[in-house]
């Protein structure tokens, strides 16, 4: 039987859709702003009022990835003609790409971006992995003073990170972990672990313990039961936890700013550092920011099915 909606219900539905549209637009506006600025010509990037229609160009991205110097004199027409398309964009801006022995010199951005990937992925894998095992332990075994332990684990997140940043920095300097990937990975893992334990404990509690007991009776060891039964059942929770941990590690700014400056610096402290005291090239910063948004978007999009089930997990009675 088809549902016949009453006029009141229809109006409410339309209002709800309109509200969702408005909220979506508000949320997407900054992303559109950054995305469009990255593709704008430099002189239009900061124009007031902002230009809405423009011819998109990739100059900002070329600048983002290369080291450049100012041209002292106009480039020779034949050099210009022989240069690849991206180098021509640089010449257009009155600069040239810095080459050492013919090799194009890359800017620091790719390596910072790489650092972000290394640190965020490794710490996410560690935090989710350890968190899953810990949560399983808390969920399945009688742990003495279980609630005290869980509270203790949560309490590690109660201080604002900035409060512990300076002491952490001094400790890190003493043991030589400043400006190292390992240092940041340890820090982010520790940071995310409490979150991961709590979230995964919720998911683990939802998995009936009879599943493993059935496997135990059938001749599997607890470890095998964990791998064959618990993990496949927990995939949704693991995906949701991984997305949250990845976002936190990927976006982390304060510790990265204090603990790193070169070798292990991640993208968040690097991007605003390009805002110089002189002329700021907003298109390049926008390009860097735009690329920085992509991994989280891709990761979240890839896990969206799990994520939707994950955040509503436990809300649905089976």
């Amino acid at each position, binding site marked *: 039987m088809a549902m016949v909606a009453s006029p009141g219900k229809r109006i409410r539905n339309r209002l709800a859709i309109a509200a969702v549209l408005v909220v979506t637009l508000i949320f997407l506006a900054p992303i559109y702003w950054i995305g469009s600025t990255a593709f704008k010509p430099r002189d239009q990037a900061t124009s007031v009022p902002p230009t809405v229609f423009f011819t998109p160009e990739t100059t900002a991205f070329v600048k983002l990835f290369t080291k450049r110097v100012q041209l002292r004199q106009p480039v020779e027409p034949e050099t210009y003609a022989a240069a690849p398309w991206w180098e021509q964009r640089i010449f257009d801006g009155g600069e040239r790409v810095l080459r050492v022995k013919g090799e194009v010199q890359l800017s620091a951005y790719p390596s910072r971006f790489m650092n972000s990937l290394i640190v965020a992925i490794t710490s996410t894998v560690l935090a989710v992995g350890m968190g899953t095992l810990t949560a399983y332990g808390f969920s399945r075994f009688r742990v003495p003073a279980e609630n005290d332990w869980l509270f203790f684990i949560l309490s590690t997140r109660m201080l604002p990170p900035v409060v512990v940043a300076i002491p952490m920095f001094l400790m890190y300097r003493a043991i030589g972990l400043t400006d190292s990937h390992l240092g940041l990975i340890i820090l982010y893992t520790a940071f995310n672990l409490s979150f991961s334990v709590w979230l995964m404990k919720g998911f683990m509690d939802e998995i009936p313990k009879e599943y493993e007991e059935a496997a135990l*009776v059938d*001749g*599997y060891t607890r470890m095998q039961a964990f791998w064959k039964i618990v993990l496949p059942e927990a995939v949704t929770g693991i995906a949701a936890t991984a997305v949250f941990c990845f976002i936190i590690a990927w976006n982390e700014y304060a510790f990265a700013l204090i603990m790193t400056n070169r070798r292990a610096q991640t993208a968040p402290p690097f991007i605003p550092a390009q805002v110089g005291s002189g002329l700021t090239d907003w298109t390049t910063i926008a390009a860097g920011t735009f690329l920085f948004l992509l991994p989280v978007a891709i990761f979240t999009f890839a896990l969206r099915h799990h994520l939707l089930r994950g955040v509503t997990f436990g809300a649905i009675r089976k």
Partner: protein
Amino acid sequence: MANIGLRGIEKYFGANYVIRQLNLEIADGEFVVLLGPSGCGKTTTLRAIAGLEEIDSGLITIDERPVQDLPPGERDIAFVFQLFALYPHLTAFENIAFPLRATGETRAEIERKVKDVAASLRIEPLLAKRPSALSGGDLQRVAIGRALVRRPKALLMDEPIGALDAKLREDMRAELKRLHIENGTTSVYVTHDQVEAMSLADRVAVMNDGVLQQVGTPSEVYLHPVNLFVAQFVGSPVMNIVPAEIRPDGAETAVAIGGGPAFAFPGELAARLGAALPAGHELVVGVRPEAVRVAREAAPGLRPVEAHFIEPLGAYDIVDLKVGERLIKARTPSGFVRRPGEAVWARLDVPQVHFFDATSGDVLKLEPAHG
């Protein structure tokens, strides 16, 4: 297949003493039902046999081999859970094959064994489906298939049909009985449903508060309960338990209920009760509704009573009779007592009347009086 022995089992949950010195021998091929109210320790006992619960003291043997320190997987038993515990991410086939994969059997062997057990459970068409696509009864059939496929020494079942609706429960009960007769696997079955217990069991073990109350065939437990708990837990509607006043009355013994008319019992009863009941203890009479005989006409031995309330149950009626100050339930042919308030006649069927020590709860064993 194997026998199972439980000797001096004790189990604490913190300060709770949940299994108290439990002794039970289960013969090879026997179907034993652990029956009791929730929280009586029956499920804990079953889980202890499986190794899912550690015991604090005692000895558990399967096939005469002590197993209390072995992990569940090494006890060679199978367990059927109330909520089926089928793995949602695996098909019915894979669920049934799961125990076989633990022992590393060949693919062909697994295929053959799963098909065999599926055929005996009549679930072959369902093998490709996932649990989410199966009905309650089929879920439990698959779960039983997973338990039987390995041909375990014993099959342990924890309220396996408790989650199903009434009609389905009846079908599954018959099916479990058939499977037991076909396979002859030693089975231990936990339930709080006495109908299930009576219909399935070779022997029923009634538990309460962690204590094994009585072990016996269904009819032994029904006809000769050892104490008030068993008397009232087994049987529906429950046995009438009423205080009674006993006095010798010439050649007979008068048993007066609720200050009402006295029913006539054999003359030696008063002396035997006097010998069996410790001084100062109260006495109560237990009589099942079907042992209360109702007539519409007066006759020798019948006492006048009043029908108070009639519960028609189709095949028979349960009539509450007002006997003195007390109500006792009687089972009559349907429509036998026509309306509440009707004056009828009743007597108690002497061999089916039980006398209990109300203080200790134990049944009084009525030895012939001395001399």
